[in-house]
């Protein structure tokens, strides 16, 4: 459906004109095309003026936009070609001007909508003759038009931070101006599923010993236990150690009751979620330039590439994983147009038979069979790409403030984007760090202009007479355990101070395991280490420092260091600090941050990795076949990244740092906490709350109320229960994905063991491989819907159908086909296009061919 205009119910408008193009096809079905002119809007309660168009002899085709015969083409856009007979009132001129989304088109067969789109105003035509003429209009679903629209959220703000895949797809698809639900046939799921083991819960040692040596458990796993007497719970696995034929777990809760040898069902909570609901991507995966994202078409293609395709069908967007065109039925999941998960819908039946005695039969003696040769290997390459700026606004270029005039001279101050002014807090400990700044302090981006040209920019931080240290805090920098950080920054003061030691930065790591670490660096004495700190620890005990004795502090001075190995995976925040109790300015510039990945036991710079499957003549032998020269090598943009800061890293959500533990007053819209803690609850942050209202919430807003001295946090969704109770609030942590399984092979449920759960890249490589291992038969078809048996009906054959050609032949027997391209004549109910083999019942999918995973070094 068309996204409605207007912002309130009172001002809702709708198109005032609609052109109706209607005919009965040879099956006797009424096919109606309606073209709404959105240029002329009327109030929602007014009648639309209807204008009838006379259909031409070949009135309507719907076809795929391009003829790419690659099964893994990620977007399959559709086009409608509408022909009508002109008259003096309605002709080509009627549809020839206006913005690209002026003419909104719907097509339905009887009551079933089969196409939503917009007229393409640069592709219309009619003979240059007096009326009556045949006017040709074309409409498309605007998928291809997404190449001109950058990824933003619904408020047109460039995305930042972590987002569910479903949210990102929805942001993109809504840019088509079509508000359509999204159905997904992709049953890859993260995690290790569900298993039942004997477990001993030890309250003394705070461990759980599980009688398995399998790979079911992993660090960071959010797990639900059931079947016990007093240890049924949902916890995070903090560590997994090997015992003697057992796994020994530590959890993020206190075990209060010991139980021995109890049969326990362990469920990986991430495995219960749909791939697009449970997996998150960092917006930087789609970074185009600093501060902008790639266009929405690129974004969709990066998400779906070498895996799925997207198309519009039956009035909705559909995503289909090619590997699921197999012997299992398609299992559906539903998302709203906004990306909200609507549930698993179970199995569907999209089978279509084509054959001499079927309702669709090959016609005109125009169907040809061609072959696609067997491949020697497929190779999926994932390149390591860093974000262009680490952290956000690292070059101090962007801020919100006055608009400089054409001949601006002098300084202008801006509120820096992605950096927030805070102060150390009254307790001087980490419990009150990131307090609100006091009046008289300053933390700005200052730009200096000459005749309208920006000549200089810098951050300036000034302390107030009270309130302690003030600082500008960065957004998070993703880091990985054992990696290293290289940071350098230039500092100076506005005056020459008699100062010896300068403490310009506090660099803190917030680990995914809830620990806090400060990077202590002293340029003078060589101290360089990560120091674990706690809530009760003084907040500025372990900073960066350097010596400026006998130095003019008005000179820029660079301080730079490379960290020791990072102790835990998590997020680093840089606080650029005015560390001196003086009414002077400290200036910052030229910040550089480099993340050094620790891969394969070294800091060698790898440029990427690949997953490759080679043909073997004997499954499981490890010996590659020779003589098969066809290959498929493609780049993929999502994979099992070895480091969380690479673009394309996939994350699952878990529980992280404790933000608060104590009394929480839950309300209808959110909750309230004592004190001004809005810094801990920025808009968009995902939090986990324990207790009666346990679950994940997204912070919508947080406001400090002076009266009462409380912070009110509005959440989405709202807490289900209004109650005041003791609860723990944690920041959600995002951890790199571990393993995936194909749940469609298990009836959209869990696999029988963790051995079915493997890396995403390997799963993907074999899914692609199984499409190219066999000789593919490609039918360049011409088929006819039988008018008596109603071959097209209200839902003509489409890309989501699984086709069987029942005319017996070596080319067609035991084979399933998918439709790659089509051109449907919706009047004659005939079609031309391409079907390609996707599965053979007599040669099942192969997983014993030679698999190889390798890091790519630029030196090799």
């Amino acid at each position, binding site marked *: 459906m068309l996204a409605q205009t207007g912002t309130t119910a009172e001002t809702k408008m709708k198109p005032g004109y609609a052109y109706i193009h209607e005919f009965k096809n*040879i099956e006797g079905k009424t096919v109606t095309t309606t073209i709404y002119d959105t240029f002329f809007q009327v109030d929602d309660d007014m009648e639309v003026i209807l204008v009838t168009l006379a259909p031409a002899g070949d009135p309507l085709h719907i076809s795929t936009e391009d003829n790419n015969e690659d099964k893994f083409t990620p977007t399959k856009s559709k086009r409608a070609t509408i022909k009508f007979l002109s008259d003096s009132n309605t002709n080509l001129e009627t549809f020839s001007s206006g913005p690209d989304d002026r003419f909104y088109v719907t097509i339905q067969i009887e009551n079933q909508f089969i196409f939503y789109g917009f007229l393409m105003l640069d592709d219309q035509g009619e003979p240059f003759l007096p009326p009556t003429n045949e006017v040709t209009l074309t409409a498309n679903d605007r998928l291809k038009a997404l190449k001109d629209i950058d990824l933003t959220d619904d408020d047109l703000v460039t995305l930042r931070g972590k987002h569910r895949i479903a949210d990102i797809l929805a942001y993109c698809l809504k840019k088509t101006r079509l508000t359509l639900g999204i159905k997904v046939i992709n049953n890859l799921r993260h995690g290790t599923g569900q298993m039942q083991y004997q477990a001993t819960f030890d309250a003394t040692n705070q461990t759980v010993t599980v009688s398995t040596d399998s790979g079911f458990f992993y660090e960071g796993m959010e797990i639900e236990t059931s079947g016990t007497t007093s240890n049924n719970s949902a916890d995070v696995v903090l560590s997994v150690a090997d015992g003697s034929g057992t796994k020994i777990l530590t959890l993020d809760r206190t075990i209060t009751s010991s139980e021995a040898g109890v049969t326990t069902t362990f469920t990986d909570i991430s495995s219960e979620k749909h791939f697009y609901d449970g997996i998150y991507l960092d917006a930087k995966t789609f970074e185009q330039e600093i501060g902008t994202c790639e266009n929405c078409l690129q974004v969709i293609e990066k998400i779906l590439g070498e895996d799925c395709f997207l198309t519009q069908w039956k009035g909705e967007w559909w995503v289909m994983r090619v590997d699921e065109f197999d012997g299992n039925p398609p299992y559906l999941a539903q998302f709203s147009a906004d990306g909200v998960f609507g549930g698993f819908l179970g199995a569907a039946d999209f089978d279509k038979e084509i*054959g*001499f005695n079927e309702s669709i*039969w*090959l*016609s*005109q*003696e125009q*169907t040809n069979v061609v072959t696609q040769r067997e491949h020697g290997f497929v190779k999926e390459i994932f390149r390591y790409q860093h974000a262009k700026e680490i952290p956000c606004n690292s070059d101090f270029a962007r801020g919100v403030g006055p608009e400089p005039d054409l001949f601006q001279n002098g300084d202008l101050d801006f509120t820096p984007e992605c950096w927030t002014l805070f102060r150390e807090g009254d307790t001087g400990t980490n419990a009150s760090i990131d307090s609100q700044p006091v009046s008289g302090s300053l933390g700005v981006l200052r730009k200096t202009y000459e005749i309208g040209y920006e000549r200089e920019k810098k951050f300036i931080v000034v302390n107030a007479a009270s309130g302690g240290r003030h600082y500008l805090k960065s957004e998070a920098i993703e880091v990985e355990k054992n990696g290293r950080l290289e940071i350098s920054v230039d500092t100076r003061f506005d005056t020459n101070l008699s100062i010896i030691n300068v403490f310009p930065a506090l660099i803190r790591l917030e680990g995914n395991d809830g620990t806090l670490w400060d990077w202590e660096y002293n340029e003078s004495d060589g101290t360089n280490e990560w120091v674990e700190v706690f809530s009760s620890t003084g907040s500025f005990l372990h900073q960066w420092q350097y010596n400026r004795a006998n130095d003019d502090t008005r000179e820029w001075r660079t301080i730079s260091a490379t960290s020791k190995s990072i102790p835990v995976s998590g997020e680093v925040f840089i606080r650029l600090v005015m560390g001196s109790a003086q009414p002077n300015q400290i200036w910052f510039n030229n910040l550089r941050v480099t993340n050094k990945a620790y891969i394969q036991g070294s800091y060698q710079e790898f440029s990427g990795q690949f997953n490759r499957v080679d043909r073997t003549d004997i499954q499981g032998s490890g010996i590659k076949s020779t003589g098969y020269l066809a290959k498929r090598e493609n780049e993929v943009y999502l994979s099992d990244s070895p480091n969380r800061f690479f673009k394309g890293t996939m994350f699952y959500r878990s529980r992280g740092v404790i933000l608060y533990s104590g009394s929480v007053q839950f309300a209808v819209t959110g909750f309230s906490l004592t004190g001004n803690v809005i810094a801990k609850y920025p808009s968009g942050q995902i939090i986990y709350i324990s207790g009666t209202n346990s679950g994940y919430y997204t912070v919508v807003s947080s406001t400090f109320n002076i009266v009462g001295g409380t912070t009110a946090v509005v959440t989405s969704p709202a807490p289900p229960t209004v109650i005041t109770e003791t609860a723990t609030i944690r920041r959600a942590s995002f951890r790199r994905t571990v393993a995936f399984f194909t749940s469609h092979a298990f009836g959209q449920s869990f696999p029988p063991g963790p051995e079915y759960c493997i890396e995403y890249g390997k799963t993907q490589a074999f899914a692609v491989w199984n499409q190219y291992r066999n000789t593919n038969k490609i039918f360049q078809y011409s088929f*006819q819907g*039988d*008018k008596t048996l109603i071959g097209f009906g209200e839902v003509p054959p489409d890309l989501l159908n699984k086709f069987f050609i029942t*005319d*017996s*032949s070596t*080319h*067609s027997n035991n084979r399933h086909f998918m439709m790659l391209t089509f051109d449907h004549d919706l009047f*004659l109910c*005939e079609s031309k296009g391409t079907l390609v083999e996707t599965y053979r019942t007599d040669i099942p999918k192969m997983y014993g061919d030679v698999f190889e995973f390798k890091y790519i070094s630029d030196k090799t």
Partner: protein
Amino acid sequence: MTPIFGYDAVVSLIVDAVAYPIFCATDMALRVKQDVVLATTASSGIARHKRLRGLYEWSVTTSGLTKINNSDGQISFFYLLQESVRGVQQTIQIDFSDAEGNDHSISGTVIIPELGINGPATDWSTADITFEGTGEFSMAAVDPPEPAACEQEDTLYIDAVAGQTSVHHDLLEQDGVVILSVARTGDTLYATNGTPGSLQFLADLPNGDIHIDPTVPFNSGEWVAVEYKIES
């Protein structure tokens, strides 16, 4: 029924709901052409398979002598030649009748893509016109033919047994047997529903028996001829 003679097939133009014959036509032809789709496939054998798609088109051509105007109730060529007539859709009707008073009518909306007139020096001026149907034509339904009565006639020669007063044949047990005639050793017998008397017979169907006068049993060497038919 008698065949339709040519002058009993009349093409008329409907003007204000009245049918006017189109000039003094000497010939007419109605053509209906259906869309045929080839349906042969790899496993359907070596003979071509064809199917009807469901679309058809139809046209009517007529030619004949014409006059200057429509004054005698026939449509003149020159009337049709006018842009206001040939430039818009028209409705025509074709009436067929036979000498027995049976009739049939076909009508539909047409456009006139082509019309012409010629004037040979030594003959009448003749005109011709083509009407192409747009949309379906309409006509009254024609009943399908009733199946003809399936009659089988045959004659059985049954040897009689001396002393008996009846003969039997299995074929006379069939459903629908109607006895047409019976002869006893050459003498034709009359049918009766009662006890047969002299020169009479009683057919006992469906038992397949023919009874004769019980007072005059068969002699040695006699035979009975039974002519019968089976009605379906």
